[in-house]
Structure formats: structure tokens, C-alpha cells
């Protein structure tokens, strides 16, 4: 495939080193995603063959790279774009490559998590919808907080729905306990869910399925400052039904002794989050719900995302290459 005078193709087996060298030359710092082998293999070589990167070349020289992550193992997968870098001297290479990425991968749907606000314009130009990733939280209601900085505490009531969550003990139990949700974009299959939440390097998750099997919740308890925070990393289910899990999530927070539970998520209407007991944390909110906890950084963090238009786009914190530990590369 060509575009704008560049040759555009998927990376081939053995090109990992060339990709890493290009990124080292054209990124501000050494990226853990490509320099930490566990990350590189998990995200970009799930089947051990060619690295999941697309390349733009000119005269045989790499001018831009775009990594991608599969949300399912289908031949026409839903994907997240991940690392995206271009040689400034090769004008247009980056845009041509990102425009071609879905077609190169035969992707049905493409999105990207945690982009800088200033980059949202690029994705909109390519036909994506780009927006701030909403942030929600629910306080435990304790008298004082060691992590959150609360100016005005608001504890919402949560309806008793009778819907309980059962822990999914292992990847093998997923298919029995959870029904896939093909209406969602991206569509996450058992292959993705098993790998992401039962085989993720450096970090473990608690995985819960509703008793109806129609809802999956993936959480982490993060110890910090002698207490802990409950983090909702992913929700897979009907966005309109998230509220059904509110009481169970509240119980989970109290059992963990967490001072709050928080959730970055786009695609669940704010009124549904509120019904689930979650307050929206605004961009200029006086309440501080720290995102970085190890070590804690006492400020609110804004995330942005982009997605191709779709009926039921659901983007959560752990999507794409996000919700991973900070491992510095020396």
C-alpha cells in the first residue's frame, strides 16, 4: 500500500530492532513499552510472530511507526492504536500511516486510549471522534482521607439491585461465567480478556462476573499511604446497565477498606454512573482524586481518547496500552 509517496505496510518478523531504534531516535524518552521485554511481547507479539506495528517507508528507510494492540483474535480485529511516531523530516508520514492503519490490519474498528489533548485534532481530522475520558469516583464516606483531597464530599445513594458479583477465579472459568458482548466496540473476546486480566505482566487484577453473566468487572486494589484505593480498570457489559453493579462495587470498596473507588470510562452515560453511586470528577474539580498512586501524585489527571464512530463504544482505563506499572528504562 502507498500513500503520500510513502510505502505503507505491516512490520515483518525480525524488524523489532529497527522499530526500537526508530523510536529511540524519534521519541523524547526511552519507551518502556518497547524496552521492557515483558511489555513488548505482551502487547505487540501476542502470537510470537511479527511485531504488531505498521511502518511508513521511503527509499527503504522507516519514516513512521504505529504500534497496535488487538482487542480480539478475529481476522478483522478491533484494535487500539498504541505507539505512534514519525520522523519530522518526512512530512506527512505519520498521518499517512495512521490513516492507513485500520486497512493494513484489516481492522473492523480502531480506537486509541490516553492521547494528549493537543493530538485529538489529528484523530478528528482522520474521522475519529475524540474527547476527554470521563473520570468518576465514589468516596467511602470516612471522616478524613489520606489519598484523595476532598473539599466537598458527596456520597450518592446506591439502589439495591440484588445483582451480585462473583469472582472469576481463573481464565478457564471465564467462558462459563461471562457471556461475551459482541455489540460493544471494541469487542473483547475470551482471548483478550484471559490474557489481559489473568496473564498480565507485573500486575494482577480481580475479575468479577455478575450472576447473570452479562457483566464483567476488572478491578485492582492499590495500596497507598497505609490505606488503599479500589480501581475499576474495565467494564464489559451493557453501558446502560452499569448501575446494576453499584451496590456490589460499594460493598467491594468497604470490604477492601478502600477510601474510594474510581473509574475512567467513556461510553457509560453520566446519569447511569450517578445511579451506580459514582460522582463525576470535573476538569476543574476542587476534589482531587489522584490517578498516579505509586508514589501518589496529588493532582487530577486528564485523559483523552479517540475512536472511530460506532454504536456502542466503551473505553475504560485499562484499554489499549494503559493501566500498567511505571517501569523506568535506564
Amino acid at each position, binding site marked *: 500500500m502507498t*500513500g*503520500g*509517496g510513502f510505502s505503507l505496510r505491516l512490520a515483518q518478523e525480525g524488524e523489532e530492532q529497527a522499530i526500537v531504534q526508530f523510536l529511540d531516535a524519534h521519541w523524547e524518552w526511552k519507551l518502556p513499552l518497547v524496552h521492557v521485554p515483558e511489555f513488548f511481547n505482551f502487547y505487540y507479539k501476542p502470537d510470537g510472530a511479527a511485531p504488531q506495528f505498521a511502518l511508513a517507508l521511503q527509499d527503504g528507510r522507516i519514516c513512521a511507526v504505529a504500534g497496535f494492540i488487538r482487542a480480539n483474535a478475529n481476522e478483522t480485529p478491533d484494535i487500539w492504536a498504541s505507539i505512534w511516531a*514519525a520522523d*519530522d523530516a518526512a*512530512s*506527512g508520514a*505519520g*498521518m*499517512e500511516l495512521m*490513516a492507513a492503519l485500520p486497512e493494513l490490519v484489516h481492522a473492523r474498528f480502531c480506537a486509541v486510549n490516553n492521547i494528549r489533548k*493537543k*493530538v485529538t*485534532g*489529528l484523530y*478528528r*481530522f*482522520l474521522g475519529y471522534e475524540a474527547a476527554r475520558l470521563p473520570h468518576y469516583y465514589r468516596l467511602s464516606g470516612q471522616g478524613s482521607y489520606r489519598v484523595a483531597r476532598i473539599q466537598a464530599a458527596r456520597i450518592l445513594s446506591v439502589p439495591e439491585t440484588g445483582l451480585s458479583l462473583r469472582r472469576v477465579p481463573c481464565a478457564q472459568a471465564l467462558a462459563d461465567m461471562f457471556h461475551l458482548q459482541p455489540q460493544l466496540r471494541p469487542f473483547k473476546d475470551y482471548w483478550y480478556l484471559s490474557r489481559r486480566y489473568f496473564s498480565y505482566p507485573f500486575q494482577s487484577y480481580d475479575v468479577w462476573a455478575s450472576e447473570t453473566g452479562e457483566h464483567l468487572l476488572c478491578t485492582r486494589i492499590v495500596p497507598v499511604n497505609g490505606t488503599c484505593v479500589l480501581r475499576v480498570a474495565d467494564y464489559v457489559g451493557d453501558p446502560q446497565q452499569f448501575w446494576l453493579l453499584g451496590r456490589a462495587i460499594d460493598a467491594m470498596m468497604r470490604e477492601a477498606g478502600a477510601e474510594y473507588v474510581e473509574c475512567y470510562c467513556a461510553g457509560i452515560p453520566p446519569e447511569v454512573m450517578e445511579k451506580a453511586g459514582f460522582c463525576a470528577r470535573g476538569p476543574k474539580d476542587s476534589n482531587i482524586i489522584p490517578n498516579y498512586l505509586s508514589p501518589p501524585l496529588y493532582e487530577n489527571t486528564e485523559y483523552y481518547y479517540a475512536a472511530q464512530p460506532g454504536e456502542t463504544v466503551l473505553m475504560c482505563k485499562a484499554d489499549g496500552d494503559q493501566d500498567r506499572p511505571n517501569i523506568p528504562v535506564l
Partner: protein
Amino acid sequence: MNDAELLKKLEDIFRENFDDDTITLTPATSPDDIEEWDSLEQINLLTALGAEFGISLGLADIRGVHTVGDMMALVRGKAGQ
């Protein structure tokens, strides 16, 4: 709209985008002349240009747009369609 008026409108777009009222454009102005004008800002400028002149721009339209003069030609070409 004559060239001077078109250039003035582009200058307003550049000043707004870069938050710099000292920017002065000629048709020859290029990214070599404005430090912050990178590929990202190129898209932001072209998006603003499209909104200002009510023209829809795609990837094929922006290939070969390297200078302010190229932008002026792009506007004239699209507006004339």
C-alpha cells in the same frame, strides 16, 4: 476575496493557533519560519482553515501543502469547487 485579504485571514488563524500576535505571514512562510509549526500544528491549522472557509479537507487535499502560499491555493481551489 483578494490575496491580501486571504493572507490576512490566514494570519489571524495562525496568530490564534499559536497564541502569538506577532506572527506575520507571506506566501513563502513555512514551518522553517515558525518553530512550533510541526505536523501536529499543520493539521490544527488546516482544520481551522477548513472551518473558517467552510471547506471540507481530507488527507489527499493536504498532501503537498508546505507553505502559506500552498494553503492559499488550497482554499482557492476548494472554494472554487
